[in-house]
């Protein structure tokens, strides 16, 4: 499959503060990928580089094979971009904004825009600045759908949305992307939402990429085991299979890609006596916190 986005050896600093070094990832055609990471790990930096609003110190990002620092108008027309906070020209009303954007895109499809707008309780002459956050998100989404791009880049689409609008946004987006074979690159700080939307995930941390895989594979292989140690001084961090460990006195939450039998064998081999050993089922959010830690 072709890679729509390809980022190679991306390195960036703000002054002397490192954001990341040699970050590599790619997004293949037709997939919906979520970029997950805690605050400050460089999600927004990555989005900015992808859209050509930031020159990385090193490395490059390619979209449809073009360096994102010099995207040609043709390629830009193939990318739909949702700015964090659903920013649009709020001094326009929906009729004006549709008219404005239609001039730029030869493949402009007003139907999905108006379909989405008809679901909102807004008048055609109402300025976007007077709309609620949820309504604004639908306007921004509607414009992207009308643009009919091949790649959608959505920066924190859930920001400011109540659960109803979030659900509406996600369901509409996923249905659309799948039906039209669109590629989606998205970030969100509400990971519950992502579970309904994305196929693939890319988890970055302060040290770089922690995981890039499909959601199913990740959820199938990443496990949490809870148990109680007899001796609360026991140190388990040396074990190679441990991805993360959350220990409060003698109660342990252990996160690993390894199977139950390997964990148990390790405990036996090292004469670590535990009780109440159990695997705990996780949602994506639990798994994300398990992998990246709470801090």
């Amino acid at each position, binding site marked *: 499959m072709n890679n729509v986005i390809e980022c190679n050896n991306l390195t960036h600093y703000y002054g002397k503060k490192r954001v990341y070094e040699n970050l590599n990832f790619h997004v293949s055609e037709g997939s919906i990928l979520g970029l997950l990471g805690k605050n400050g790990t460089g999600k927004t930096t990555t989005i900015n580089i992808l859209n*050509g609003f930031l020159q990385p110190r090193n490395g490059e990002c390619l979209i449809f094979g073009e360096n994102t620092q010099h995207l040609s108008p043709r390629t830009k027309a193939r990318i739909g*971009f949702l*700015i964090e*906070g659903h*920013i649009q020209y709020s001094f*326009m009303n929906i009729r004006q904004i549709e008219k404005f954007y239609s*001039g*730029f895109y030869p493949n402009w499809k007003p139907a999905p825009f108006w379909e989405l707008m008809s679901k909102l309780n807004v008048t055609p002459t109402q300025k976007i600045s007077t709309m609620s956050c949820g309504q604004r998100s639908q306007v921004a989404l509607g414009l992207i759908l009308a643009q009919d791009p091949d790649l959608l880049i959505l920066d924190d689409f859930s920001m400011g949305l109540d659960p109803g609008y979030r659900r509406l946004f996600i369901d509409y987006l996923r249905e659309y992307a799948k039906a039209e074979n669109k590629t989606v690159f998205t970030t969100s700080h509400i990971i519950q939402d992502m579970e309904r939307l994305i196929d693939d995930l890319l988890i970055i941390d302060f040290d770089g990429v922690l995981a890039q895989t499909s959601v199913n594979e990740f959820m199938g292989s990443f496990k949490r085991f809870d148990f109680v140690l007899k001796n609360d001084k026991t140190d388990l961090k040396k074990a190679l299979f441990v991805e993360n460990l959350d220990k409060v006195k003698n109660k342990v939450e252990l996160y690993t890609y390894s199977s139950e039998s390997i964990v148990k064998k390790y405990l036996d081999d090292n004469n670590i006596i535990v009780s109440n050993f159990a695997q705990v089922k996780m949602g994506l959010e639990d798994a994300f916190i398990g992998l990246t830690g709470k801090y």
Partner: protein
Amino acid sequence: MMWKSIVYKEWLKIRWFLIGYTLLGILGIGYLFLTVKHGFAFSGGKNIWNSILFMGHQFFSPLKYVPLLGGLTIAIAQYFPETVNKRIKLTFHLPLRENKALLMMHAFGAVSLLLSFLVFFGMFTGFSLLYFPVQMVTDSIISIFPWFLAGFSAYFLVALIVLEPAWKFRLFYSLVGGFFLTIYLNSPVTGAYDPANSGLFVLTAFLSIALLFSAYRFRKGEM
């Protein structure tokens, strides 16, 4: 099609400011010549002429900051909304070259300002010619010309400053820009700007693409 859309967006932003400013300017110039008419009726034409020719009276001096105000107004109306929430990103994401998009926006703003100024200029010249001979009108035009250039410069400089991403540099640009504008606004005798006007025109033209610099810095993620 694209330039139509850009013009449409810029027009939506500045229309009320441009119309309001132009109307106020027309009223202002109307009032100015009402005072001239009043002066002719009450002091007599020869005394008005005499005070203009030999006593340094500048009947047009109330216009001094009118073009500057226009440049500031249109620039703020046009570029301030673009920087709230970094909305200019939307423009850069449009399927055309970033500099081309900016220059189209800028050209529209400058032409709008020019049209407004032409209305003022036409009114001023027309009314002046009713009351004064060509020599006096020419000298007046030499004196007000740099004020109009200052209006354009203010427009160009505000665009530069507003689009700059870093506050420190906004301050630097404002310092240079503010002092630069003073060279158009000396208060000399009527006609004194004659040898300087062509040079000032060139300098003003130099500033017309200044915004590309700060917009570039914005695009490259300067903070």
